[in-house]
């Protein structure tokens, strides 16, 4: 019978030795469950029939396609405009650089409804750029263009920061060697810097796309219609209650999860290849 006290002693000694790990593991488990349970519940416990019906509902389908499409264009615009800035921030020092970096991060922390109002002030029909765009036939209020600029504003920091980190990790001496071998700065960027920072750029672009898909606050103020999925969830919740909102929410969660699984898969595969 002396076995039990021995086991108890061993367990106690293990707990004492690994105290930090045990405490941290318990706390970690709490936060993992906190994130996992609501997402799992909405996906796995929602009524399968309702989920299927939602998928066949043309309004839902249209809104999902619109959301994916708008976020994709947004990511494309972010890619073209954000990567040059990321490169400049990674490779150069200039006055007020810190302020520029802070400014780029700001959309992450500002409430997105406030972002929507701010964008309305600039791109609304009677304001600044809005007036000019209006004159050339581009409207931002209640239009695809409005959805895109709202998504762009809140999601572009993810791409810029990720690409900036990627560029920073590229050894500047590789660029130097490429220059002395006869490559122009454009060739160096195209053949050395960009391919080496590709993984971070891709991660940033996918993050930006996913962030665009899930944006609600800024979009709802600037473009309630055409309805993106997050607005549709809100509308269904407000008008018909939880049961109508859940299936649409579940579909959006599943889509975001798939993007993320795909994104991690690409990064892992790329890492192995390196």
């Amino acid at each position, binding site marked *: 019978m002396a076995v039990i006290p021995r086991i108890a002693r061993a367990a106690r000694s293990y707990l004492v030795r690994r105290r930090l790990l045990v405490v941290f593991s318990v706390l970690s488990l709490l936060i993992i469950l906190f994130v996992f349970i609501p997402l799992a519940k909405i996906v796995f416990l929602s009524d399968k029939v309702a989920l299927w019906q939602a998928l066949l509902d043309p309004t839902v389908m249209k809104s999902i396609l619109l959301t994916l499409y708008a976020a994709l264009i947004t990511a494309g615009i972010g890619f073209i405009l954000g990567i040059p800035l990321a490169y400049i921030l990674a490779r150069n020092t200039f006055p007020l650089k810190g302020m520029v970096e802070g400014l780029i991060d700001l959309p992450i922390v500002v409430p997105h409804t406030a972002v929507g109002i701010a964008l309305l002030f600039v791109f609304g029909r009677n304001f600044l750029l809005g007036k000019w765009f209006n004159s050339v036939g581009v409207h931002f209020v209640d239009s695809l263009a409005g959805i895109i600029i709202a998504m762009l504003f809140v999601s572009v920091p993810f791409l810029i920061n990720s690409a900036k980190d990627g560029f920073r990790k590229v050894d500047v001496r590789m660029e130097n060697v*490429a*220059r002395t071998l*006869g490559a122009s700065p454009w060739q160096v960027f195209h053949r050395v810097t960009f391919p080496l920072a590709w993984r971070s750029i891709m991660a940033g672009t996918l993050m930006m796309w996913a962030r665009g898909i899930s944006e609600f606050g800024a979009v709802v103020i600037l473009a309630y219609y055409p309805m993106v999925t997050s607005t549709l969830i809100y509308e269904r919740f407000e008008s018909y209650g939880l049961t109508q909102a859940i299936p649409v929410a579940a579909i959006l969660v599943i889509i975001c999860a798939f993007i993320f699984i795909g994104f991690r898969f690409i990064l892992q595969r790329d890492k192995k290849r390196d």
Partner: protein
Amino acid sequence: MIELKNVHVKVVDFRLEQINLVVSKGDYCVILGPTGAGKTVLLESIAGLHALRQGAVLLDGKDVTNTVPEERGVSIVYQDYALFPHLTVRENIIFGLRVRHMTKPKIDEALEWICGLFEIQPLLKRLPATLSGGERQRVALSRALITKPEILLLDEPLSALDSESREETRSLIKNTQQKLNITTLHVTHDFAEAMSLADSIVVINQGKIVQFGKPSEIFYHPCSEFVAHFTMARNIFEGNIISQDKQEKVFQTNGIEIFTSSDKIMARYAVIRPEMIQITLEKPISSSNSFPGTVKSIVDRGANILLTIDCLPFFECLLPRQQFEKMSLSIGNQVYLSFLPSSVHLI
């Protein structure tokens, strides 16, 4: 030929000042200096990677001060080789030809030539991450030389290698340089490496050239206390000349008098290299510089033994192992050290 005329460069907080240097065509010039002396910045400035604040860079007589790096005909090889990790060895090597839009037959011809020179044929399909240090070095050199540059810049090319491949690569570099007769600038902090490779040595410290000359000049006639220290002269004594006649001068330091045949009239330091000192158990019969002393420490350095002898000032002497074993010295032994007046260099 490389010619630097009064070059001033500033990179972040680091400055290169008043750099004047001429390296003849086909010469192997080593830039020697401690870490942070500005050696790499100097190389990069020659390659055109930093804008000059002042001065001019001439390559083969042509002013290239405002020429972009890709048009200078200069190749650089860095310490850790900076191979492009996303490209195979073949793609790495032909990078310089590809960006110049050379035709495939010409690329293949150049590749064959460089493969013969560096024996890298079996590595061509591999990625840089799978290569050993020596192989990476050969690939980096191939990549640098396939474009047939006028000037080759090497930034600490041996310091990342183990001692065996270092020897191999050292002779590979020197042989290739001589075969191609390419003007080479090689940066290092290792004095022995500089001595073994250089036709001329530039000693640089805190962004300035301190001394320029043939290896033997730097070795036996350092121009400053810094150069003497850096070239491992070890016995550097502060003092002053107390008497001089035509043949010999007497330099007084720490209470001892050292005879020297140096032709300097004014001097603050006397320098005696450790390998120029003789150690005997008996007092030598004929030597003007002979001092009794006690062995204070013995450091075994393999082929040589470094002894510290206390004869008021401490002298450090380098003794061949065979002689050391014959004398069977140990700490506390009484010995005589002596050196010729011609071995005393005054600064």
